[in-house]
C-alpha cells in the first residue's frame, strides 16, 4: 500500500482508491449481496421490514420449484417450463450463431483482402449500434401477420392464409439469433486473425482436406474465441429482455419477463430477487462450464 502511494503520489492514489472502491464495493458487491439477502426474505410492505416477520425463508425458491401453496400440481410446471425453455433456447441460439458465424469470421480473418476486411468489419459494426429494440422491431415488421414475409408469400401464391410467425415463436428465435450475432463474430474473428496462414498452407501441403484442416488446426486455435463468443451470446440471450418484449407471442414467456412480472406487476421484490439469483447462478455456472470445457481463463472469455 505504501508503495502504491509512493508510485502514484497521494492525490492520484486517493482518486484511484475512491473510484475503485466506489465501483467494486458500492456498485458491484453490495447491491448483489443485498439482493441475495432479500431473496431469502418474505415479501413484506416497507413498514414491516426489520420487524418480527422479517426472517430468512426459502419460500421464493420453493415457489419456483413447487408452485404456490394453493396450486394442485406437484411442481411449478409453468415457471420451470419457462426457465427450461429460456435456457434451452439460449443454448440453441448460441449453437446456431456459432455455426452461422464461423465461416464468415474465417473469411474475414483469413481469405478477404485487407481493404475488404476493413469494410466488412465496419459493415458488421453498423447494425450493432442500432438499438436492440429497434432491431427486434425490424424483425417484427418482417414477421407480423400483415408483415412483409406474409404479404410476399401470399402474393406469390405460396400461402393461402397468413402464418402467425409470432405465435409460432419463429420471430422470437430469429430475433434472438439476430440480436447478438456480432458478439459471436468478433471474438471468433479476433481469434482466427492470429492464426498463422502458413499453418493452413502447411496442412494443405501435407495433404489435409479442408474439413480436416479446420477440425485439427483452425478450431483448436480459435477455441478461446469460440468460448468467448459462446459465453457472451448465451449470457445475453438468456438474460435478454428487449427482444422477447417485442417478439414473444402472448403465450410464450422469457424468464426475464417472469422476473419483470414479479418485480413490477406483482410488486413482489423479494421473489423477483430470488428469480434473478436463479438466472445469475445459471449464467455464472455457464461461464464456469465454458472455462472448464475449453480450458480458458476468465480473461480470455471476456475481452
Amino acid at each position, binding site marked *: 500500500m505504501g508503495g502504491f502511494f509512493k508510485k502514484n503520489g497521494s492525490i492520484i492514489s486517493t482518486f484511484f482508491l475512491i473510484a*475503485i472502491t466506489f465501483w467494486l464495493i458500492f456498485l458491484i458487491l453490495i447491491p448483489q449481496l443485498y*439482493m441475495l439477502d432479500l431473496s431469502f426474505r418474505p415479501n413484506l410492505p416497507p413498514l414491516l421490514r426489520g420487524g418480527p416477520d422479517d426472517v430468512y425463508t426459502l419460500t421464493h425458491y420453493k415457489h419456483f420449484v413447487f408452485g404456490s401453496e394453493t396450486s394442485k400440481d406437484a411442481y411449478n410446471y409453468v415457471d420451470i417450463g419457462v426457465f427450461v425453455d429460456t435456457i434451452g433456447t439460449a443454448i440453441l441460439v448460441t449453437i446456431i450463431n456459432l455455426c452461422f458465424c464461423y465461416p464468415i469470421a474465417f473469411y474475414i480473418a483469413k481469405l478477404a483482402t485487407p481493404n475488404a476486411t476493413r469494410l466488412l468489419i465496419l459493415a458488421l459494426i453498423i*447494425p450493432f449500434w442500432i*438499438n436492440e429494440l429497434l432491431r427486434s422491431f425490424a424483425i417484427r415488421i418482417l414477421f*407480423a401477420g400483415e408483415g412483409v414475409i406474409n404479404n410476399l408469400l401470399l402474393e406469390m401464391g405460396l400461402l393461402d392464409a397468413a402464418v402467425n410467425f409470432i405465435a409460432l415463436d419463429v420471430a422470437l428465435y430469429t430475433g434472438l439469433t439476430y440480436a447478438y450475432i456480432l458478439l459471436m463474430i468478433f471474438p471468433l474473428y479476433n481469434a482466427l486473425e492470429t492464426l498463422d496462414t502458413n499453418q493452413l498452407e502447411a496442412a494443405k501441403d501435407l495433404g489435409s482436406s479442408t474439413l480436416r484442416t479446420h477440425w485439427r488446426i483452425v478450431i483448436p486455435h480459435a477455441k478461446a474465441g469460440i468460448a468467448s463468443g459462446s459465453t457472451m451470446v448465451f449470457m445475453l440471450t438468456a438474460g435478454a*429482455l428487449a427482444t422477447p418484449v417485442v417478439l414473444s407471442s402472448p403465450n410464450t414467456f422469457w424468464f426475464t419477463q417472469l422476473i419483470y*412480472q414479479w418485480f413490477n406487476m406483482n410488486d413482489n421484490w423479494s421473489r423477483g430477487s430470488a428469480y434473478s439469483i436463479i*438466472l445469475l447462478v445459471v449464467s455464472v455456472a455457464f461461464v464456469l462450464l465454458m472455462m472448464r470445457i475449453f480450458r480458458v481463463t476468465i480473461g480470455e472469455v471476456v475481452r
Partner: protein
Amino acid sequence: MTSNRTFQVFLGLYISIFFLYLFGPLIIMSVTAFNSTEFPSITPWECFSFRWFNEGKIAYDGQRLAGLAADRDLHVGLITSLFIALGVVTLSVPIGMSAAIVLTQVHSKLRTLFYSMSIMPVLFPGVVIGISTVVLWDRIATIGGEGIISELGRNGIFLTILGQTCFISTYCFLIFVARLQRFDTTQEEAALDLGASQTQVFMKIMIPYLMPAIGSSAVIAFLASFENYNTTVFSILSEQTLTTVIATKVRLGISPAISALAFVIICMTLIAAVLYEFFRRRQEKRKALESAAKMYKEISSDRLKEDIKKAFILPKSIFVILFIFLMAILGWQQIIKNNLYGGDCIAKAEDAKKSNFADQLKLLQNNAESLESEGGDGGTGSTNEYNDIFGDPNLFKNFGGFDN
C-alpha cells in the same frame, strides 16, 4: 479447378445471405417509414410520405399515431437518455481508467482477483444489475428517512446512472487495459527522473497517452448507456428514457413512427461510420505522404521523385455516390409520375378506406370474438399485459388499404 470455382460461388452466396440477413430487416424497416399506411409495411404501398417523421396521423378508430416530431414522450425520453448517458460517461470513464492503471500495479495473486471482480458485471444479466440497484437503494432510502438520500434512492435517473455505470465501467476498463498493455513504463520513469512529481507524471505522460482510450471509451460508454434497456427498465422507476418509451410503444402498437425513428438512427450511424472511415483513410494517406516525403529527402533519385507526383485521381467512391444520387432522382420521378406522393394520394387512400370502413368494422368485431374464444386457454393467466391487440395479425388485416 472446378471445385475451387464452386467453392468461390458458394462462399460468395453465403456471405451475401449473411449480410442480407444483417441488413435486410433494417432496410425494409427504413423503407416502411416512408409508407403512409398505419401498419409499417411495403407491399400494400399506399403513398410515399414523410408523415411519420412529422405529425403522424389520427386513425379512424380514434387512435392517435404520433409521428416523430409530434411525439412528446419521445422527446422527454430522449433528453433523459442523453442526461443519463452523460452521467454514465463522467462516472465510468474515470472508474475504468483508475481500475486499469491499478491493475498494472498490483501483483499476481491480487491481480487475478481484481481482474475477475472487474469483469464480473459483464457476466451479470442486465436485469439482475437493474434489480439489485433498485432493491438496495430502496432500502437505503427507507432507512435514510426524509432527506436527500431518500430523494436520491427513489430517483430513477440517479439509479439508472448507477446501475449502468456498474457494467459500463467494465467496458471502459477493458479498453484501458488494452491500451495500457502497449504502454512503455520507462516513459514514466524518464519523467520522474527529469524531476516530475507523481501527479505531473500522471497529468503530462499518462493522460496524454491514454487520450485515445479516453475518447473511445467515452463513445462506447455513451452509446451503451443510450441504448440500454434491460437494466434501465428496472432502475428508471417512474421516469422514461428513449428506450423505455420505444419499448412501451412497440408493446402497445406497431407504428411506422418507430420505423421513422429507426431510420433516423440508422442514418446517424451510417454517417458516423462513413466519417470515421473517411478520416481514417485521410490519416493513412497523410502518413504515407509523410514517409514518401522522408524518402524524397533522403534519396535523391529522379525515378522515385516521379512516383510521388501522381496525378489527381477521383476516388472510386464518387461513382457509388453518383449512382445512388441518380437512382434517387429516377425513383423520385417515378413516385411523382404515378401520383404516389402528396396530399392527393393520401386523400384518395383515405376515401377508399372510409368507404370500406363499415364493412371492415363488422369483420373486425367477428375477428375479435373468435380471438377471445381462442385466447381463453392460452398462457399463465397473468399474460394479459403482453396479450395486446397487436399480437394478433388478423386485427390489422383490413387496415392499411389492401385494395390499392
